[in-house]
């Protein structure tokens, strides 16, 4: 019997913190609240570390049963936790980054109202996220899934007094609903056809199945539906619209939820159910295409954004697109790898951006920044590292994972590779654009402009807190996490050095059992778009692939550098040039600035008709004319009937007697009529 | 028919007896003129009643006014029917049962009939549309209902001792003696003298006799329920009252005083006639007590009457019932 690790502690600890802060935090001092939050999230992190140390000695997957939940006939769902390499990686990322961001938030949110509320939500999010990661069945996973949605809703709408924040929260929630809908249907299909939701049972019952080439098969349907859910949670086309708006939330939230952890839940889910996808090539293709499009699309939008957080948001979307490409081409390990590194550097980016915003007192518009390099050196350097990382410049973390993905993509189809490459170039371009605009040149903003321009500047509400002094470096509680994350974003990639660069890709090997197990069962299948990556790595002639891989690596690096140069040219050498180009591009530029009018499109396509229809049919039609009307009429009818019937009560004893006699006669007639037949 | 005749004469001579005794008690002679010791007085009274003018006052409710006395007298006389005045007489070969009918619930019939007797009084009081009569009728009905309860309960004790409703059986159960000299009467037996006392009181009330003659209290309501009656109708009420007295006396002597049992001697004919003699003797003794009480006691007030009936007699009779039941149960 494998030892009991008490995995349940990992999610429950943050929950306890959340409960304490949520219920009693109002009474605590800020130190108290921060202490509680940090204690519990840190405790969760330590617990995960302990688990990680004992991990090698575990039989994998290691399933811990906590309590029975649903038992109906053969169908049963338990509160049980599923620990394998994949979930371990996720655990480390979530708790680690989450802990760091907790620390950061203490400094960032110090001046805010609702301090305890913020940390209660944050811990709550940790709880749900960990539940999601540790779940041993789809239902428990779904609980976590919904829970993180709830937490993100709460945190996006943290400054609920602000319309934009509140509506952004609602938007995120509703858009997620759409995805969850698909997810739910997928679950129902699973229940219907495999009679279970536990990963091991489902997978073991799926493994024997052969891949479906057709698009209409059961697994394909399930895969597509799961993909819908993933798209909703991970902000893929067409459901990505909520993520940029989610930047209304406090920056740490953006870092934690909307960059590092929650949005990657979709990737986690897809790669967790890789067994299904590998047997649904059609679904995989869809995943890949969606990922590609999203990556490109978001990147192009990212170029034109001027709000620092929006830029990061779109870059997040496009990075997620990368991960989905990886999933789509069956390189799940690569996806998870990029997920991890992305968690590092994107979290770092956001935190650094937050630090910048902090420094310039709530300003978010990059055009109001510039020349901050010297003012806030720590932030600058960490931000630099992060930028290089995301731009895919070796030897930073992003390079390895992105390169891995591109290589896999090429192996599956050169189209993916080309678009991915172009996206990589765009990414580095807009990241360096941001970098240059923020830190170089001359300062274009007014230091005392604490309120910024309330049109942009979602942190406006908390801007009040920063009325002191001019531009200033953030306190150490904020800088510390930056440094740690910077280190991680430098070194994070080294655990996955591909063979071509003389590494042996330890990360992939570490993860391989997860993604291998299924292949071992269904190793025979060789057709379909999704050629399992492991087969490639174990292909007979590694040298050729290695040399080829090297070339591609070079190309991608060059793309990154090219982006850097372009940005340098446009935003450092000659800052006037962009306007010219924009003017020359004209309508296209406009479209891009306005995010291709996607929001407006959705508004006209779905939102307005929906509201109108609800108002017309549901509200006036059904609610007023049917439900209310039925109630009113029934009450009215009762009133009428009793009004006429009350004359029976004439107070005249003999008329009562008459009624009684008539009734008795009726009863007797009935009895005799029934009795004589 | 014979029994009816005997009863009527008995009634008449009860009246005579009463007048005589009361007269002597009040240092008067009573009736003396008609016949020796006025023995023919009842006859004269009867004739007088027959020939008097029967006047019906106006404003009376005719049908009931006429029906009331008849109801009274009929019920009074029918109750005699089930009373045995002795065992069968055997003269030579022919056997004469000295009882009109012997139903084995004779006592119940007597009670029922006497309870019906109330109607006569009540209706008379009501129908003859005068305040005296109405008050008399009300009092009569209320008082009779009230005392009927304790009357019946006082009898139940005896019934339990001799588990039968048949008067004959009850009487036969009282033959013989205790220790040779005390007659084995119910009154001496199982503490039934309490029951006898209760019975006596209730009987006085039932028959509207002093000290309970509230319904016909001459001094308050002129003559109570028969104020408005005259001649034969009045005579009927009179007869009904005395017939009731005789019935009550007979029941008392049957139930408590050992019926017709007594020393038998002489020739067989005498022996067969002696029980009747003993029985009639007891009845007249009882009637004498009636008259005696009338001569001595004053009248109750109405509320006293009711209080006496409900708060003293009824609990007492119930207690007696319980004790007797215990005695029977222990003896069984």
């Amino acid at each position, binding site marked *: 019997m494998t030892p009991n690790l008490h995995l349940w502690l990992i999610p429950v600890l943050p929950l306890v913190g959340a409960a304490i802060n949520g219920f009693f935090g109002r009474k605590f001092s800020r130190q108290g609240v921060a202490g509680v939050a940090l204690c519990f999230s840190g405790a969760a992190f330590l617990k995960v570390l302990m688990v990680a140390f004992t991990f090698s000695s575990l039989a994998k997957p290691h399933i811990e049963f906590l309590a029975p939940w649903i038992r109906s006939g053969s169908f049963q769902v338990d509160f049980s936790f599923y620990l394998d390499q994949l979930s371990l990686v996720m655990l480390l990322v979530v708790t680690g980054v989450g802990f760091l961001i907790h620390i950061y938030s203490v400094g960032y949110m110090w001046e805010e109202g609702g301090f305890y509320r913020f940390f209660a939500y944050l811990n709550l999010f940790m709880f749900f996220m960990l539940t999601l990661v540790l779940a041993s069945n789809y239902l428990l996973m779904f609980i976590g899934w919904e829970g993180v949605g709830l937490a993100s809703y709460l945190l996006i709408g943290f400054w609920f007094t602000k319309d934009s924040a509140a509506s952004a929260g609602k938007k995120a929630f509703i858009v997620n609903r759409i995805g969850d809908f698909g997810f739910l249907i997928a679950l129902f299909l699973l229940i219907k056809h495999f009679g279970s939701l536990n990963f091991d049972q489902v997978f073991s019952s799926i493994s024997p199945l052969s891949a479906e080439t057709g698009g209409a098969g059961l697994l394909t349907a399930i895969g597509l539906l799961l993909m819908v859910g993933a798209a909703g949670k991970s902000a893929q086309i067409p459901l990505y619209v909520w993520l940029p708006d989610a930047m209304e939330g406090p920056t740490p939230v953006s870092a934690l939820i909307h960059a590092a952890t929650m949005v990657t839940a979709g990737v986690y889910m897809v790669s967790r159910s890789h067994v299904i996808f590998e047997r649904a090539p059609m679904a995989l293709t869809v995943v890949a295409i969606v990922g590609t499009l999203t990556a490109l699309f978001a990147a192009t939008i990212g170029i034109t954004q001027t709000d620092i957080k929006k830029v990061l948001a779109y870059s997040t979307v496009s990075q997620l697109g990368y991960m989905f490409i990886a999933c789509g081409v069956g390189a799940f390990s690569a996806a998870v790898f990029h997920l991890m590194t992305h968690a590092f550097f994107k979290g770092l980016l956001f935190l650094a951006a937050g630090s910048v915003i902090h420094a310039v007192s709530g300003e978010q518009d990059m055009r109001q920044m510039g020349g901050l390099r010297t003012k806030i050196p720590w932030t600058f350097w960490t931000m630099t590292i992060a930028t290089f990382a995301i731009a895919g410049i070796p030897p930073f973390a992003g390079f390895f994972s992105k390169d891995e993905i591109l290589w896999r993509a090429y192996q599956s189809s050169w189209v993916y590779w080309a678009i991915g490459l172009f996206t990589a170039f765009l990414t580095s371009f807009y990241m360096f654009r941001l970098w240059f605009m923020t830190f170089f040149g001359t300062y274009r903003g007014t230091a005392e402009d604490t309120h910024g321009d309330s049109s942009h500047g979602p942190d406006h509400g908390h801007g009040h807190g920063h009325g002191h002094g001019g531009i200033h470096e953030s306190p150490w509680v904020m800088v510390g996490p930056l440094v740690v994350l910077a280190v991680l974003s430098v070194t994070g990639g080294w655990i996955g050095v591909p063979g071509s660069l003389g590494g042996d890709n330890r990360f992939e090997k570490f993860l391989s059992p997860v993604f291998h197990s299924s292949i071992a069962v269904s190793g025979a299948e060789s057709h379909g778009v999704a050629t399992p990556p492991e087969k490639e790595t174990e292909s007979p002639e590694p040298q050729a692939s290695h040399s080829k891989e090297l070339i591609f690596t070079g190309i991608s690096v060059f793309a990154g550098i090219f982006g850097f140069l372009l940005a340098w040219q446009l935003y450092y050498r000659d800052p006037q040039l962009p306007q010219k180009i924009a003017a020359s591009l004209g309508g296209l530029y406009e479209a891009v600035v306005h995010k291709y009018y996607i929001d407006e499109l959705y508004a006209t396509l779905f939102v307005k008709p929906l509201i109108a229809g609800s108002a017309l049919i549901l509200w006036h039609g059904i609610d007023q004319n049917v439900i209310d009307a039925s109630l009113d009429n029934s009450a009215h009818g009762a009133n009428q009937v009793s009004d006429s019937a*009350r*004359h029976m*009560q*004439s*107070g*005249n*004893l*003999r008329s009562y*007697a*008459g009624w009684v*006699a008539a009734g008795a006669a009726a009863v007797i007639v009935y009895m005799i009529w029934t009795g004589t037949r | 028919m014979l029994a009816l005749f005997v009863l009527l004469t008995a009634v008449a001579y009860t009246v005579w007896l009463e007048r005589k005794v009361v007269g002597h008690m009040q240092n008067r002679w009573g009736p003396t003129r008609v016949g020796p010791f006025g023995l023919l007085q009842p006859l004269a009274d009867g004739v007088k009643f027959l020939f008097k003018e029967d006047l019906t006052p106006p404003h009376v409710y005719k049908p009931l006014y006429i029906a009331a006395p008849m109801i009274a007298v009929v019920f009074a006389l029918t109750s005699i029917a089930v009373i045995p005045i002795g065992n069968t007489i055997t003269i030579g070969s022919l056997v004469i049962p000295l009882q009109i009918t012997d139903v084995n619930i004779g006592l119940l019939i007597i009670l029922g009939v006497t309870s019906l007797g109330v109607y006569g009084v009540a209706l008379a009081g009501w129908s003859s549309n005068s305040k005296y009569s109405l008050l008399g009728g009300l009092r009569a009905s209320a008082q009779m209902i009230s005392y009927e309860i304790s009357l019946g309960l006082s009898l139940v004790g005896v019934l339990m001792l001799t588990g039968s409703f048949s008067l004959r059986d009850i009487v036969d159960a009282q033959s013989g003696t205790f220790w040779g000299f005390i007659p084995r009467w119910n009154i001496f037996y199982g503490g039934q003298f309490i029951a006898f006392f209760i019975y006596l009181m209730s009987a006085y009330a039932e028959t509207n006799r002093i000290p309970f003659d509230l319904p016909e209290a001459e001094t308050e309501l002129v003559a109570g329920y028969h104020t408005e009656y005259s001649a034969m109708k009045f005579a009927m009420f009179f007869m009904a009252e005395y017939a009731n007295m005789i019935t009550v006396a007979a029941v008392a002597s049957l139930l408590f005083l050992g019926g017709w049992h007594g020393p038998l001697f002489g020739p067989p004919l005498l022996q067969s006639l002696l029980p009747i003699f003993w029985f009639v003797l007891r009845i007249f003794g009882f009637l004498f007590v009636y008259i005696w009480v009338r001569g001595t006691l004053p009248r109750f007030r109405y509320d006293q009457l009711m209080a006496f009936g409900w708060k003293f007699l009824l609990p007492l009779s119930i207690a007696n019932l319980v004790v007797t039941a215990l005695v029977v149960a222990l003896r069984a």
Partner: protein
Amino acid sequence: MVPIAYYLILSGILFACGVTGFLIKRNIISIFMSIELMLNGVNLSFVAFAAQWHALSGQIFVFFVMVVAAAEAAVGLAIIIAVYRTRETLNIDQVDLLKL
């Protein structure tokens, strides 16, 4: 010997008379007496059935009915007296305060 049906029909007639009296009488006391009449009809049928099935329990029920009737008469007449005291009438048609 009499067919039991005769007794039952007699009891039915009595009962019907009682109900009719209840319906057409206006004097509270008369209505009350009609109720008693109904009870009597029922009693007769009880006794008749008891005789038919040779089960004395029928007669026992008659006793219960009588006792209940007695109690009912006591209470009911007391109520009538109270009503008369307050309303000064025995006409049921004039005692109809309890209405809407």
